[in-house]
């Protein structure tokens, strides 16, 4: 693992002052607006196992926040809680100022939470463009009868979906793949498509679960640039889980480390790299030198 790259340094200088509430325990409430995400004492049990416990975090509206931790620490579970794939056993999740208690995954998405999955979940038999168009589902409406009767509004909607999908695909230079079946894409492209699809739902908070898994270093570098670009362009908060320390340390403003379902450290990348508990549990001795 290398040191902070020039790329990262340069970027930090360019993007001015992104608030980083996730680092401090107390959320910053003085921004006039609610943070993108606020979790209070969040927890879930599986049988006897406290997979996540007393999880508190606040993510600013345009923050990139990293969630790291050993395997089985509960990172994916946190995402599943945030998106209501699992209903929390305790605690509160506030998205953009709204309590999500009792909502189902679809509702939470409409509140502004979108995600990708650790094991890719695309609509394999649909084309790339259709995958994105499905993501645009709630951005533009067109009733069933209208579609079946092919009324003018249907064609207007179709044009919207088409244009907007291509626009979004363009972020990752994927317009050329628009007509390919999603399931037939190479692995890296599938990961990128998942991000585009999530973006299509117009989220306020984007959750990325190991976006760089299975990518080679050059693909990863490109991905890093894109994640930042997305944040800057869409002005959204991004929370990501990743084992690639190069990526995490370079683009996250704040990092939260999880072990056995509990937060063991929060801080800036530099702080985390120095934290003994984190080195002990997660980074390992070798990586200490990196920092």
């Amino acid at each position, binding site marked *: 693992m290398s040191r902070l790259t020039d790329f990262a340094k340069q970027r930090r200088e360019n993007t001015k002052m992104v608030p980083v509430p996730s680092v401090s325990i107390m959320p910053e409430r003085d921004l006039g607006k609610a943070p993108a995400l606020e979790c209070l004492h969040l927890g879930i049990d*599986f049988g006897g196992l406290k997979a996540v416990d007393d999880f508190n975090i606040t993510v600013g509206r345009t923050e990139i926040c990293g969630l790291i931790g050993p*395997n*089985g620490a509960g990172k994916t579970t946190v995402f599943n809680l945030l998106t209501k794939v699992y209903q929390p056993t305790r605690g509160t999740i506030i998205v953009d100022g709204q309590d999500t208690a009792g909502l189902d995954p679809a509702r939470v998405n409409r509140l502004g939470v979108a995600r990708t999955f650790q094991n890719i979940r695309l609509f394999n038999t649909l084309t790339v463009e259709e995958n994105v168009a499905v993501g645009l589902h709630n951005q533009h409406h067109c009733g069933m009868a209208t579609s079946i009767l092919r009324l003018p509004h249907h064609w207007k909607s179709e044009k919207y979906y088409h244009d907007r999908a291509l626009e979004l695909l363009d972020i990752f230079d994927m317009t050329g793949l628009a007509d390919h079946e999603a399931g037939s894409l190479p692995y890296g492209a599938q990961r990128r498509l998942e991000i585009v699809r999530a973006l299509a739902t117009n989220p306020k908070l984007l959750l990325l679960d190991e976006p760089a898994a299975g*990518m080679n*270093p050059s693909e990863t*570098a490109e991905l890093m640039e894109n994640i930042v670009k997305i944040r800057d362009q869409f002005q959204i908060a991004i929370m990501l889980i990743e*084992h690639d320390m190069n990526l995490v340390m370079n683009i996250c403003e704040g990092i939260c480390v999880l072990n056995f379902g509990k937060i063991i450290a929060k801080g800036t990348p530099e702080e985390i790299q120095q934290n003994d508990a984190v080195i002990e549990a997660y*980074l390992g001795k070798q*990586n200490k030198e990196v920092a």
Partner: protein
Amino acid sequence: MLSVYNINVWYGAIHAIKGISFDVNDGEIVALIGANGAGKSTTLKTLSGLLRSRTGSITFMGEDLMHMPAERIVEHGLVHVPEGRRIFQQMTVEENLDMGAYSQPRDTIAANLERVYAQFPRLKERRRQIAGTLSGGEQQMLAMGRGLMANPKLLMLDEPSMGLAPILVEQIFEIIKSLHEAGTTILLVEQNAQMALSVATRAYVLETGKVTLSGTGDELLHNDDVRKAYLGG
């Protein structure tokens, strides 16, 4: 020990492996590296009998594997830990390990199990948990542990470090080294070229179904093309 000559594999109409040849000698760690879709996993699947090559030959310790069914290949000591873990989701951790020892004589199983638990204490903690609910990393440990249960002579690992925490990646490579020292020959497929090359005796680079480069681990680690393509500059 293992010698692969000119294998060609198709998925339906797709020509995934285009005449690959390589050797693995007793006591080596041989790494196959290459980009996504280069055909690394396909090669391993062909060796373990899940896929068939239409041409060429595969010999393992004097046995012809070309026409041997997959379940017999395992008995000969060629063990494949597949990509994506492929553990038995509905079974407990211990049952999974039992399955790994399916082809082994009964009396060796208990000792093997202890050995695996020693290597992966986390598995021992979770021995009664349903494997499908393990986290990604735990599942990878289980997959490797299961492979070890078969007493491999040649262990083929397909991306064992994928999705693992840095500390675990280290551990996995430690385990690979220690297995190697204990006399197991290893054929390692990895995206993490840096790590793979640093432990490998020899390595081959695959690109779109062909071997494009080969050499010792060190040679490749310092090869400019490899650095550019697989080590991030």
